[in-house]
């Protein structure tokens, strides 16, 4: 397939060299901490989240070993409670949500034909904050300060009276870190998607994946403030004696549950919606045709986002919810299945009329259909008040949520890694290992989690560190543990495959899959400035357009970080702003903020004295440099 690289003229080659010079990250250890190129940060972000994914997986394995036999004493209740709290917290806050934003922060600019993300320094800052928050949690865990009140930290158990010490405070501050990072990423992505699309990429030509990231980012803006408020109130209850959750002084334990689930349920969709975009990219490419029903897909995603805010109470049926309320939340919880169904049917229609090539990415996408559909259907069961009263807080729910999150998010995510790995590294991953990886994961997953449905119905509650032999749950638990081991092997294969292919994989070239979206129109891995010449977009699948190569943009300086911004709706060329250059200050500011947050766990005054270094750091981050400013002024064109 034609690409820009195959038709470089001599002067374009010089220009490409200058661009590389302009956009690449500074060398050296200091340069490493000053890096702001969206691809550099995104790769670090992805590696970090994968690290947390593995950590959370190890915790899960220990839990499965403990539960493999009844009345097992491999670990005690104290450590077990820390294990499942850390597992849930890690997977939800340190893996699932951030990994989606990490992948997005790599792909979105490339898919839009942009040179960079908006606010690259803020992007670096968001990464460092996330990293420090996650490390804080794990250092605490290793020092026996691991949170032990569940990832949902229900008060009063997580409150000052029943969770003494600093364990829960570390958890609550970790929330502050990760939510801050996620909120910043959301702002960055929204701005990028609205203002930095290639000329001609009207909203209705935007790749479906970009749509999912746009919708997800907006959901973040509305969902995450809720949990930040909740955890702040929790920490003030614990540290300065406020009474938000103290019934004796007019507070209310359910206030926590409302605030938490108003965030917590949309969060599931923050995790689930971007993978819908992975699915659409992979299915289109490997069935050699556009996704059927573009408009329906977009509207379905938007509908999901709206409904997601209307069903948090279905986590609280067992509390005293008034009947009418329950009916409303039942209806909306069941209705959210419709948009997902629409998308599934559109994908099946696409496959039905496509020319299929069964490469590993498509295999993972197909795994989604089996697992997610099952998980979605158990979700419909949980939406019903009657059934929920029986299976709520049992292993049935554990099975359900893993079917939804692993089937709905992790399988497409793995597919996405196989699909875009060539773009990240310039090399293809091994197909053989890929197939082993997929089949082991698929089988292991079902062996591990299907029995949990039955366990739940047979009366086994969640979050139990052990169970009496007389309950007869032993065999199914043993089966689940075997399945967990199989999953571990397959993930190990994935790591081996990635490490091996990074060095010795088959060279990919710009577009190994013959895909249609812009990120495949540049080298693999892309140059520091993403595109030697920014493309102009002629359709939904520009690389599939009759003329193959999109027309390109000229007139952007290549000796400074000039980018093109376009208008909101129909992406007409608008401005030529200049992006900021690399800086150490985002990193240093992140450290200052970390000191403030951790300090405030021990004394409220940290908020005061900790604010000073933060103010200094952010000011120096913002403060312009005289020389480059003069260069800017020289070439300034006023509106």
């Amino acid at each position, binding site marked *: 397939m034609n690409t820009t690289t195959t038709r470089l003229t001599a002067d374009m080659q010089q220009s490409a060299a200058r661009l590389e010079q302009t956009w690449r990250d500074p060398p050296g250890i200091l340069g490493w901490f000053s890096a702001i190129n969206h691809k550099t940060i995104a790769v670090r972000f992805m590696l970090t989240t994968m690290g947390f994914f593995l950590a959370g997986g190890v915790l899960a394995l220990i839990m499965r070993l403990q539960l493999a036999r009844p009345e097992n004493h491999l670990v005690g209740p104290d450590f077990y409670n820390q294990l499942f709290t850390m597992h849930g917290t890690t997977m939800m806050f340190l893996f699932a949500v951030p990994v989606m934003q990490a992948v997005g922060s790599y792909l979105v600019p490339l898919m839009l034909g942009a040179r960079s993300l908006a606010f690259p320094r803020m992007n670096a800052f968001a990464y460092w904050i996330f990293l420090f928050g996650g*490390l804080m949690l794990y250092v605490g865990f290793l020092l026996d300060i691991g949170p032990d009140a569940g990832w949902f930290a229900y008060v009063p158990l997580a409150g*000052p*009276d029943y969770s*003494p*010490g600093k364990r829960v405070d570390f958890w609550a501050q970790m929330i502050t870190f990760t939510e801050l990072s996620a909120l910043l990423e959301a702002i960055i992505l929204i701005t990028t998607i609205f203002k930095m699309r290639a000329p001609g990429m009207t909203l209705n030509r935007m790749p479906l994946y970009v749509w999912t990231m746009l919708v997800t980012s907006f959901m973040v803006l509305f969902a995450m403030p809720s949990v930040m408020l909740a955890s702040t109130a929790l920490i003030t209850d614990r540290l300065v004696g406020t009474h938000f959750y103290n019934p004796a002084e007019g507070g209310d334990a359910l206030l926590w549950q409302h605030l938490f689930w108003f965030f917590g349920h949309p969060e599931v969709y923050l995790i689930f919606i971007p993978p819908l975009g992975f699915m659409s990219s992979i299915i289109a490419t490997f069935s050699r045709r556009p996704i059927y029903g573009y408009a329906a897909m977009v509207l379905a995603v938007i509908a999901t986002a709206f409904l997601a805010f209307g069903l948090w109470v279905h986590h609280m049926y067992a509390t005293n919810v008034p009947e009418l309320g329950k009916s409303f939340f039942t209806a909306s919880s069941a209705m959210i299945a419709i948009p997902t169904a629409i998308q599934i049917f559109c994908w099946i229609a696409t496959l039905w009329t496509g020319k299929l090539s069964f490469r590993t990415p498509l295999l993972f996408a197909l795994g989604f259909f089996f697992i997610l559909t099952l998980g979605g259907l158990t979700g419909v069961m949980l939406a019903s008040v009657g059934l929920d009263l029986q299976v709520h807080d049992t292993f049935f729910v554990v099975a359900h949520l893993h079917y939804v999150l692993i089937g709905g998010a992790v399988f497409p995510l793995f597919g996405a890694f196989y699909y875009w790995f060539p773009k990240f590294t310039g090399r293809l991953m091994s197909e053989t290992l890929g197939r082993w990886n997929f089949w082991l994961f698929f089988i292991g997953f079902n062996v591990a989690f299907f029995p949990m449905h039955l366990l739940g119905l047979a009366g086994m509650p969640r979050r139990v560190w052990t169970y009496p032999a007389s309950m007869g749950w032993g065999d199914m638990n043993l089966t689940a543990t075997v399945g967990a081991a199989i999953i571990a092997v397959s993930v190990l294969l994935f790591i081996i495959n990635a490490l091996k292919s990074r060095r010795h994989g088959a060279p990919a070239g710009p577009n190994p899959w013959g895909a249609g979206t812009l990120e495949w129109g540049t080298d693999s891995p892309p140059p520091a400035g993403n595109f030697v010449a920014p493309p102009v977009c002629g359709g939904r699948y520009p690389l599939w357009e009759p003329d193959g190569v999109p027309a390109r943009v000229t007139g952007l300086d290549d000796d400074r970080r000039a980018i093109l911004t376009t208008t909101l709706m129909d992406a007409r060329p608008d401005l030529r702003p200049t992006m900021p250059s690399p800086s150490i200050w985002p990193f240093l500011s992140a450290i200052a903020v970390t000191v403030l947050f951790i300090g405030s766990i021990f*004394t409220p005054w940290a908020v005061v004295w900790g604010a000073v270094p933060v103010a200094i750091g952010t000011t120096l981050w913002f403060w312009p440099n005289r020389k480059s400013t003069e260069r800017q002024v020289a070439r300034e064109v006023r509106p």
Partner: protein
Amino acid sequence: MKITVTTGLWACVIASALLAGCYREQRPLPGAPATAAPTDPLRLTSLQPGEPKAAVNSGNPYEDNAYATAQGKHLFKQYNCNGCHGSGGGGSGPALMDDKWIYGSEPANIYATIVQGRPNGMPSFGGHIPEDQVWQLVAYIRSMSGQLRSDVAPSRSDSLSPGKPEQRREKETPTPESLPQSAK
């Protein structure tokens, strides 16, 4: 480069883990604490010949453990110490959150007071309350007058709040004091 630094970060994590685990956060299950000192001989007065006897410092290990101190707080309520001592503010029994200590402020003194009882109404709980629970109570009682680190002392309870939570109280410097009038 990328790899080395990431591994470096993880190395720091592991290293910090190898530091002595954080005793403040452990959840020691019932069973007498490792090094609880023998109790002070019964002394009904602080008057003594010659050099004032140096305060016995028993180093109650529970005073560095948030969980044990919080357990002490729960026991204080369950064994109805509030009945006489209010929530530390005092009632028919002396206040426990002030700087006055009739029978000494050291853990060993308080232990003795609980185990042996004192004239004028303090019953002897020896044998009734297991030793480790007594030490938990001792730790909590000292937190009431701010003797413990603020990261160990309990925060507010889920009940009517009598005032500042223990962890926010200023440290009172204990002054021995003769029996109150009422007791004479």
